[in-house]
């Protein structure tokens, strides 16, 4: 395998990893801070994709669609948190799993009802539809690089917010001790609502910007969700650092797995997870 081919796989792996990180970070934050396993998190990814698809059709611009879908996804996330998720806080994991499982069924079907069961595609915006030539035969799509860049910027931004801002401090405090944070006078309800909404928006963004390279179909959030679980488990629940490392690991494992063992590509991902858990049963950063 020559260098350029290898490089392309690495770039793909990193890009996939960054996308996974965007979704997984929301999942791990929600669990770390609110103690909720949200199986329906993948639904936000799907929602973002569908919003982008729909708005791109309406506005004619994917970029506008992505920007518009963000606040919509956040708002929907906030509403869902207020209406349903709030009932889960004091319940145990089993109830959360089942309740959010029920939500998945509802979301997937609602999507099917609203937009039909067909698979849709979204074209890459014309301005970004070119490739960087690497060799005579190989080139790399600029859109994918942009995707990675956006995710990377968001990742850095998230790190800065969590570690440097007051809001980030509340988030970290809430992750350690929810009741204490409430006792200190911080509006925990609002905090949770905002965190959930941000998680939803991040997942939605990931879905939206990935539409040109994946297909839009009902239930598309399910496979992403499972991988995010693997990422969160590997990284350690509640840890953003862990989610990042886990996402990179999975993104690369999946990409290289598809290249070397196409029949067992998915295996490599779960194999990595099993290996990590044998070594550290609570994830890398627990």
């Amino acid at each position, binding site marked *: 395998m020559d260098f350029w081919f290898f490089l392309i796989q690495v770039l793909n792996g990193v890009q996939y990893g960054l996308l996974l990180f965007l979704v997984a970070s929301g999942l791990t934050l929600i669990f770390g801070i609110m103690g909720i396993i949200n199986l329906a998190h993948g639904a936000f990814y799907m929602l973002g994709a569908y919003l982008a698809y729909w708005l791109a059709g309406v506005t004619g611009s994917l970029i506008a669609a992505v920007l518009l879908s963000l606040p919509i996804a956040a708002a929907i996330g906030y509403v869902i948190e207020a209406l349903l998720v709030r009932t889960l806080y004091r319940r*145990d994991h089993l109830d959360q799993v089942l309740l959010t499982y*029920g939500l998945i069924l509802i979301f997937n079907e609602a999507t099917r009802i609203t937009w039909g069961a067909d698979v849709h595609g979204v074209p890459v915006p014309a301005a970004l539809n070119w490739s960087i030539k690497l060799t005579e035969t190989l080139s790399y799509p600029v859109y994918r690089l942009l995707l990675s860049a956006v995710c990377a910027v968001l990742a850095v931004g998230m790190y800065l917010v969590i570690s440097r801002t007051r809001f980030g401090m509340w988030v970290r405090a809430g992750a350690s001790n929810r009741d204490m944070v409430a006792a200190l006078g911080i509006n925990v309800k609002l905090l949770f609502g905002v965190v959930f909404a941000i998680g939803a928006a991040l997942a939605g963004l990931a879905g939206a910007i990935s539409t040109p390279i994946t297909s839009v179909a009902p239930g598309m959030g399910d496979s992403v969700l499972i991988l995010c679980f693997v990422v969160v*488990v590997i990284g350690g629940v509640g840890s953003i650092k862990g989610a990042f490392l886990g996402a990179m690991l999975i993104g690369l494992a999946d990409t290289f797995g598809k290249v070397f063992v196409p029949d067992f590509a998915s295996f490599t991902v779960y194999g990595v997870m099993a290996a990590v*858990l044998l070594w550290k*049963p609570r994830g890398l950063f627990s």
Partner: protein
Amino acid sequence: MTALPKRLSLILLALLAALALFPAWGPLAFTVKYAFLLQKLTGIMILAILAMSLDLLVGVAGLVSLGHAAFFGLGGYMLALLSPQYEAANLWVVLPAAMGAVALASAVVGFLAIRTAGIYFIMVTLAFGQMGYYFFNDSKLAGGSDGAYIYVKPVVEAFGITLVNLESKQAFFFAVLGCLVAVYLLLRVVLASPFGRVLAAIGVNEGRVRGLGFDPMAYKLVAFAIAGALAGLAGFLAATQYGFVSPAMLGWHQSGHVLVMVILGGMGTLFGPILGAFILELAHFGLEAVTEHWLLPMGMLVIAIVLALPKGVAGLLLQWCGTSETLVERGAIEAPGAPRRSQGSESDRPALEGQTRPKEGGQ
């Protein structure tokens, strides 16, 4: 062996009788639809066996596995793989082989999974389940995503005489019913045994179990093997019934579906999951007849059940039949010779914080 209130035992026996006699009263009540319903009931009974096997893990040991369907599917695929293409397989050979293989796989998965706890365990089992799904979906081992067919059902023979003709829908119905009852009785025996008592204790307070001198890991592992083998049996029966297996049998939608059956029915009671299977499947049947978008009301039903019936239907029945305790004792088997359970004045004490496992109690 039974500690169920008498009224409840009678109700359950009556339901069993109604089920067993369906080939008698069914044709009269349903005429044309009878054949279809017979098959439907057979399918539900198979899922009930699967649900009971999961209950051993979830309801008794407190191990919430979201990947249990993988063993169900594996059992079915074992039949597909072991059956000669256009001939019947010998049940005495393929069934033990299938169950053995699944038990082994389950033990391996269990060995890795029990190193984790809580949410990690749930996610890990989910991921292993998906591993199973992708294994059969992506590889060419057995038809890939298209699935595989079993053209001829296995034969059940002894000394050249056919004992049970599995091709006959009626005979198969009774065979499955027999399995259902056998599995239930087997699990009741296991729950009443020293092993079962330790397992139930692990589900209530694992830390204390350790402090008393039992190694929880060993018991969980064995539970995994047993639950896996029984799930494999269910899968084997399903494959026999439909003559077809597909990767979806191993997927997490199937796993989630079974878990809902266990919870809806009432976990830890064994009979609860049977009821749960029937209720959920009949609800599916009913909803699908009304709308093609039946998953939507189904999702709402799942949510409503979780919110309204924390102890499931079995919990409701137990309460109604005289036990005023709102605490459903895991694997409720009493030692005869033990003093009769008395109702304390605080018997309305609220149930334990969900069914939360205390975190490594005793630290």
